[in-house]
Each structure stands twice: as C-alpha cells, then as structure tokens.
C-alpha cells in the first residue's frame, strides 16, 4: 500500500435532506481529511441530489470513507473515481477593470487564445468566464493578474463518470436507458 495522496472525485447520490451535508462532511472531518472542493446539485433523477466532492487522500482510506458515507441512511449510493475515470470541469470568473480591456491590446488576445468568454462589460469593469481544467483556469489567472484582477472565483469540480452509476437500478426506477 502506498502512502501517496491521490486526488479522488467522490460522487454521492442522496435524498434531499437538511443536515445531510453536515453528516457527510463530518465523515471527512473525523479522519482529518480536507475537502478540496464541493458541489451539490440536482441529479439526472427527480428529487435525487448529487454531491461532487474532491479530496486528496490515501488510496487505503478512500474505500473506507466511501463505505462510511454509503451507509448513511439518506445516501443512495457513493462512488469514488480517479481523474482518469471521470470527465470533469471547473468554471472560473475573473473581474477586471474595463480600462485594461481598451488600453491593453494583449488582454483581448489572452481572452481569445484561452477560449474564455466575456460575460458582461460595464463602464467600470468586465467579467470573463472560463470553463475547463484547473490548469487552464490557473493559466488564465496568471495571464490576467498583471493587469489587475478585481475579483476571482472558481467553482467546485463538476464531474460525470465514464462508467455508468446505475442509480435508477439501485432505486428500482424504470428508465429507458
């Protein structure tokens, strides 16, 4: 067993319940594991929610953590995947002074080359959106920083697994899939 920390994307399908986030995060807390990012949203099934949590842990720990999450009453199923096993993205927003956009020709080139989008432009500032891997949003950050970033924010990871998770089967729901 290696002692290397690996990055895992944890996907948890749940019933919607007040306090469930607390219950799930407590399992990481108990083992002194930091949550790198966390996203919750609706899933592909009505009234079923999905947590996507990114953690760095030992390979030996992740299976135990997943089983401890899975046994929580309102958790329908929990999975973990390595980066290779998922398709994942993050979204970042960059708020920059408008005058840089007009005064610095470079900026327009940076935006174009990084395939980022301008979301809004106002007299004082404009906002750029970039969706992609962590390295891509970081690269854009590094490029824009010299021009003065007013604000920067990056979302948690969203991810879908390459393999099927078969939640409908677990729940005994009929689907056309």
């Amino acid at each position, binding site marked *: 067993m290696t002692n290397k920390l690996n990055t895992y994307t944890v996907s948890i399908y749940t019933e919607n319940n007040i306090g469930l986030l607390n219950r799930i995060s407590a399992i990481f807390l108990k083992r002194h594991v930091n949550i790198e990012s966390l996203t919750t949203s609706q899933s592909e099934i009505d009234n079923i929610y999905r947590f996507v949590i990114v953690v760095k842990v030992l390979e030996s720990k992740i299976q135990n953590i997943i089983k*401890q999450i899975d046994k929580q009453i309102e958790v*329908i199923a929990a999975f973990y995947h390595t980066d290779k096993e998922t398709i994942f993205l993050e979204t970042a927003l960059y708020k920059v002074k408008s005058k840089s956009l007009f005064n610095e020709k470079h900026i327009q080139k940076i935006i174009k080359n990084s395939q980022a989008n301008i979301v809004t432009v106002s007299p004082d500032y404009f906002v750029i959106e970039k969706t992609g891997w962590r390295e891509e949003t970081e690269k854009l950050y590094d490029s824009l920083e010299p021009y003065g970033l007013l604000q920067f924010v990056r979302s948690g990871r969203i991810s879908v697994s390459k393999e099927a998770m078969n939640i409908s089967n677990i729940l005994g729901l009929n689907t056309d899939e």
Partner: protein
Amino acid sequence: MKKTNKISGSEAVIKCLLEEGVDIIYGYPGGAIMPIYDELFKYEDKLNHILTRHEQGATHAAQGYARVTGKVGVVTATSGPGATNLVTGIADAQIDSTPMVCITGQVASHLLGSDAFQECDIIGISTPVTKWNCQITKASDIPEVIAKAFYIAKSGRPGPVLIDITKDAQFELMEFKYKKCHSIRSYTPIPKFSINEINKAAELINNSKKPFIVFGQGVILGNAEAEFKEFIEKTGIPAAWTILGLSALSSDHPLNVGMVGMHGNYGPNVLTNECDVLIAIGMRFDDRVTGNLETYAKQAKIIHFEIDPAEVNKNVKVDIAVLGNVKDTLPELIELVKEKSHTNWINKFHSFYKKEFDKVIKNDLHPSKEGLTMGEVIREINEFSKGNAIIVSDVGQHQMVACRYASFNYSKSNVTSGGLGTMGFALPAAIGAKMGAPDREVIAIIGDGGYQMTIQELGTIFQTGCAVKIVVLNNEYLGMVRQWQQMFFDKRYASTEMINPDFVKIAKGYFIDGKKIKKRENLKSSIKEMINSKKPYFLEVCVEKEANVFPMIPSGASVSDVRLE
C-alpha cells in the same frame, strides 16, 4: 360546527411510542418538552416514565434496557443542556450498536437560530454520533418521522436516533394516523449475502487444521446464539469473544476459550498469530482486540461475517467477506461445513490457559496475600449467581476483571460500555437492565471512580425501588490509568488517587441498605446478604490498592506479545 379528531403533536408523540410497543421511557423534563410531559401525565398508566437524576443517566438506563431486552431504549429530554447531556450516551450507543430513540424538545420554530433561551443545535451536535437524526417543526410530520426513527434504530446494525421537536410542533393540532416503517429506499439494513462467498468460506474452514473463531456482539444482535453454537459444535472450532460478544456463548461451553484483546486471555491472543484460518463473526476488529495491525494474524486466512459493509476491510484486510445477518448466513455455512474435532489444537489453548492460571488467575481468584482482589469478589458472586445474573460493569480495571471472570449461562447478560469506554455507565445502565429483566438478578460492578460520575442515579433507584445490586470495588485509585502510569510513566501517579467519601452513608442517605467490607472473612456472607436482599443493595469492597490487570497487550504491541506480568 364540524367535529374534529385532531390531537396535539405531543399526544401524537405518545401515541406513536405506544404504537411501537414502548412501555417505558427514561428522561428528564424541561421547558421545551413540557407539552410532551403533559401528555405523559395523561398516559401514565400505559407509558412508564422513569425520572433519572441527569439526562446522561437516562441514556445509559435506556441502553441497559435495550441491551438486555433487544428492544429500542427510549429517552426524552428538553432542549439545550438537556439535549447536550445526552451526547455521551448517544455516542456510547453508536459505537456499541445499541438501538435507542432520543426525543428532545426544541425552542419554537420561529426562534430557531436566534440563540433563544435553552436553544442548542442538537441536530448539528449529534450528527456524527447518531445513525440518523431529524428535526420536526410541523406536528403533521411526527408520525412518519417517529416510525422511521424506530425502524432505523433497530434494523440492520442497530444504533441511536435523535428526534428534535420544536415546541410549537408539540402544541400544533394534527390528524393522527400511524403507519409503521418497513423500508427506506436509500437504506439497506441487511446486505444480501453471497452464497459464493459462503462456499469459499466453507472450503477454507473444511481444509483448515487450526481454525479459530472470534465472535462479537453481532451474534447477540442477530439473535443468532443457537445458530452460532450449532456451527462451532459441528466444526469443533475453538471460539473466543470480544468484550461485547460475552454471554453469547455460555461460559462453561467446552469450545469457549475466553476473551481476545488487550486484557483478554493468554491463549486466544497468542494463538491468533498461530491459527491458519481466523473466522470473525459479528465483530469489528477494534484496536483493543487486534493490537498492532502489522502483526495481527498475518499467517492466517481471514473470513469476516459482518452485517455492516463499512466494517469490512476497515482495519484488517480479509480474504473472504460474508455480508449479512449471521442469523441468515450461519445456517447456510453449517450446511456446507464438515463435522470435525480439533483436539490437539484445542489442547494448545488449554496449555496456555494453564500457564495463565498459574501466573495470573490463581492469584486473582484464590489469593494467598492479605489484600482482597477484584477477581475473588467476582468468583464469590459467581458462587451465588451460578451464572444466571446480568452483570453490568463500568469502565476500567474492575470491568476487565468482571468480564474475564464472571460466568454467564444466558445471552444478553453482559452489559458494559465497550467501544466508548464511558465511565459512569454502569449504575444507570443497571437500572435499565433491571427494568428490562425484572425477574433476573442484576449486579452492577463499578469502580470507585466511575461510581462517582453518575452516583446521583441512586436517587432514581430509591424513587423507583429498582432492586439492583451495586458492588463498588474500591481501590482508591483510577486503577486502569494508575496501572498505565506505573507501567509506562515511571509511576508518576498524576491525579489518579481518590480520596473518597463514605459511600455507605451516601447509599443510606438514599435509604439504600449498604455495607462496606475490608476483610476476606466477610466477603462470602456479605455477597450472600446482598443476593438475598429483595431490595436495592450497596456493597463496597475495599480491594488491593495497586493491583494490576493481566494479561495485557501493551498499546501498540502485537497480540502474541501479550504479557502475563
């Protein structure tokens, strides 16, 4: 005007409890749960409420009740401090898989989050130590949530559930309709077992020369004592118990080879590292059982029968995992295993027992020195109980001695705080045990330290007349900590010496008969007097001050390095 059948949320709570077959609850009233207590008053002929002297006492009493009956223990408490006082008992029930439903009052819903008087986020606090918890702010949710609570608490691997009900929901009127809960779509209490894995397990067992069983509370919680006994008798495999597995197999059974773990028996510990197949049944490889994992049963193939998938490969990597209730899986296994006997292998356990007897047990049970030992007190209790009593122990040296030496004929007779190691557990747990099994002798064995952590429950004993027998083994030390200080901290006895009060006078203050003895010649007659008493009875035995519990696996050592001195 149309006649209404509506009842209050509080009355609904009581009706739900009655629907679930509850006839006794342990608790303590207060502001935010007063509407429920008001209903309890009206239903007192059907639902017996035991007023403990502290909410922690209520949880342990409910645990004691649950452990001897197999039913769900029920606790009620008010918001804020009432609720926080439950936390120790809830954590204890969680780690020892005890079914319990705790109902707490909460401030009115419009006050939630405003730091109102006696407001406390008990849902947040209890989350990591409950199997499930839920806050109710509408009376109409009460039946469904309580039904779910009981189902969750007792199904699969049991555990504690907490329901927090705001005061306005207790007052609110609702139409009452109760439907028991039998399933929750996101919850699989008992995983389906794989016949394939059972086949593999049977093959390993049939081919093994030195098989060894370690069994835990899973046998008791699964009501699988008979199946377990049939399995070991057919295969002739020696079986050792974890502290919570104690009493699942009668003490005098020829295949019962004793306890595993830190203060377990010599043979079972050493031979864990000699067996060729280790069969773990309803146990979870706690660190107090395994010692150093790097050297635990490395030579053996390990088979794990377990209801909770999260326990499989958690601490010890196993070769075969048979998920499911052992009540269902053992009969399948019994069909496939061959009748065998392992005489030479079992003789090895006997020869290790003889070594342990000469070095440890003889001096514990039949001491030649002047000071009374804890062991001889238990031996004397066995003489009178004949193994028929329920023994409730607290935490520390006396607990290890009680579990090592007490004899048991019946399952569900050993009540102790195993996983959490909660001092103060025994006195209130004994109350619940006695109420759950009123026809049986219930003897609480407690140290002088733990006794004083919940000593106020003597008030509950006095008020209810609950005829528990209390034995305090007084060595004027926090003995287990002192033993470690002696062995690992150069005898620096930091805050372990206790200057104790007159315990007999305190018992008398609660009108409980009591006696203190210091001499061996008074031991037998005092225990006889205690056992013969029809009322609660307190016996303080002054034992050797600096005695140590052996065998012992020092923390971090291998099971095979178990020490006899």
